[in-house]
């Protein structure tokens, strides 16, 4: 009799155990990737229902594609007038007439103008003619002459970008001016994609557009997402690792998008004042809630001297920064201390300020 009880007990235990082990729907990770906006974009979502995750991811990519099409500066050959991006239309009508644009593009331009003022002109979204002069994004590159620079720099001026909120219009007031949203659009698109995922009900996700990253929720219960900051001089090494949840992070570095002219490398983060690549910093990483702001600010702060950048960050809400200066100092804003685990190589120095 006792033996029977024992067998029944074992059977019950195994059954209960089995239900607990296998009955639970397994948490899945779904990753989709696409080449968009001149970069590699991946979206990873977590949940139990993969069909639902797939649908949500598809919508997020659709939204990113929409932003990409609105902001692309180079129109594809054979594009019909109706399909030209807002940025191409604004540029083509520079000095001619204002152009009605999409509200997302308007929002990006407003933000860009705001940071142009905050950085006293160091950041400028009307940098197009200068990038073209150097040949960034073009087939041929060359080092501009002083005369060429002087001529082109008069065309780089955010104050000549006129925005009309009521009519949702943008106008570059001088012929030859052009916008480049390279420092704005990717982050903005990541933020829009994150909004789409959140609206669809995705609770945990990571969107990565070439280092412009937004995380939604936590990776798992009480487990934040771990994001590494690349060493600017060694792509296999890290400066440190940040633990993030519901935040965005972006980096601008002097090692990205470079061109080589006569054996010398030049990066694309150009000064609207001098026309040359800015050399105060090797990289600037920004952590904040909005991915669009993180993208824009990482470029804007890169263009400032380190102390000036830290001072500006101190004035902004919910914004933190990691700066690797040209002389290999690592500067971390106060709000990140405790959230960052530094692991930089010996040649970098960390000054706890």
């Amino acid at each position, binding site marked *: 009799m006792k033996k029977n009880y024992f067998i029944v007990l074992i059977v019950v235990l195994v059954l209960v155990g089995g239900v607990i082990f296998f009955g639970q729907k397994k948490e899945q990770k779904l990753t989709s990737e696409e080449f968009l906006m001149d970069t590699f974009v991946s979206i*990873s979502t977590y949940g139990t229902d993969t069909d639902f995750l797939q649908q949500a991811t598809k919508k997020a990519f659709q939204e990113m594609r929409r932003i990409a099409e609105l902001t692309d500066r180079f129109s594809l050959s054979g594009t019909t007038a109706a399909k030209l991006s807002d940025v191409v239309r604004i540029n083509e009508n520079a000095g001619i007439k204002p152009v009605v644009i999409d509200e997302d593009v308007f929002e990006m331009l407003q933000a860009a103008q705001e940071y142009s003022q905050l950085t006293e002109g160091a950041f400028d979204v009307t940098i197009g003619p200068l990038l073209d002069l150097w040949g960034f994004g073009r087939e041929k590159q060359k080092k501009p002459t002083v005369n060429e620079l002087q001529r082109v720099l008069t065309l780089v001026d955010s104050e000549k970008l006129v925005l009309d909120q009521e009519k949702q219009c943008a106008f570059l007031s001088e012929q030859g001016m052009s916008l480049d949203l390279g420092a704005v659009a990717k982050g903005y698109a990541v933020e829009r994609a994150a909004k789409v995922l959140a609206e669809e009900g995705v609770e945990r996700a990571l969107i990565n557009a070439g280092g412009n990253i937004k995380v939604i929720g936590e990776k798992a219960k009480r487990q934040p997402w771990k994001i*590494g900051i690349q060493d600017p001089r060694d792509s296999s090494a890290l400066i440190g690792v940040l633990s993030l949840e519901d935040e965005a992070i972006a980096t601008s*570095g002097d090692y990205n998008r470079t061109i080589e002219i006569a054996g010398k490398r030049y990066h694309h983060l150009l000064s609207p004042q001098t026309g040359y690549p800015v050399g105060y910093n090797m990289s600037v990483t920004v952590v904040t809630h909005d991915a669009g702001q993180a993208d824009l600010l990482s470029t804007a702060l890169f263009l400032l001297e380190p102390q000036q950048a830290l001072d500006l960050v101190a004035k902004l809400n919910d914004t933190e920064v990691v700066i690797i200066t040209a002389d290999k100092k690592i500067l971390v804003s106060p709000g990140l201390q405790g959230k960052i685990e530094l692991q930089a190589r010996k040649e970098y120095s960390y000054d706890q300020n």
Partner: protein
Amino acid sequence: MTKTDQKLLLGLLIIGLLALAGHRFYFQSQTQSNQVIIKAKGEVVQTLTLRAGEPLQRLTIEGKKGQAIVETKGLKVRMLEAPCPDQICVQQGWIDSPRQTIICVPNEIVIYIDAEASLDGITG
């Protein structure tokens, strides 16, 4: 402790061991190798396991713009030739650590060394 108790304990122990074995099955210990994944036009086209000391190996990968040649040697991998205009992927040279990637945007090829992710992403 009665005999029944002993049997019960033994039963629980067996269940515990089984659960543990199952767990181990999922999290196998790492060996000295690199898992390289090559994607072209959005699809995984090659998965390679690289081991230290292995000889040079070349693969032809069909990208969006044309053929690229990927080379592996020991634990490392690089883009040897690519039909892209900027040649950023070729200039990057060898990669050999689990967090590294080679991305050729014009030709839509991604080469990366997979790792049981200790990191979820890299900004840079």
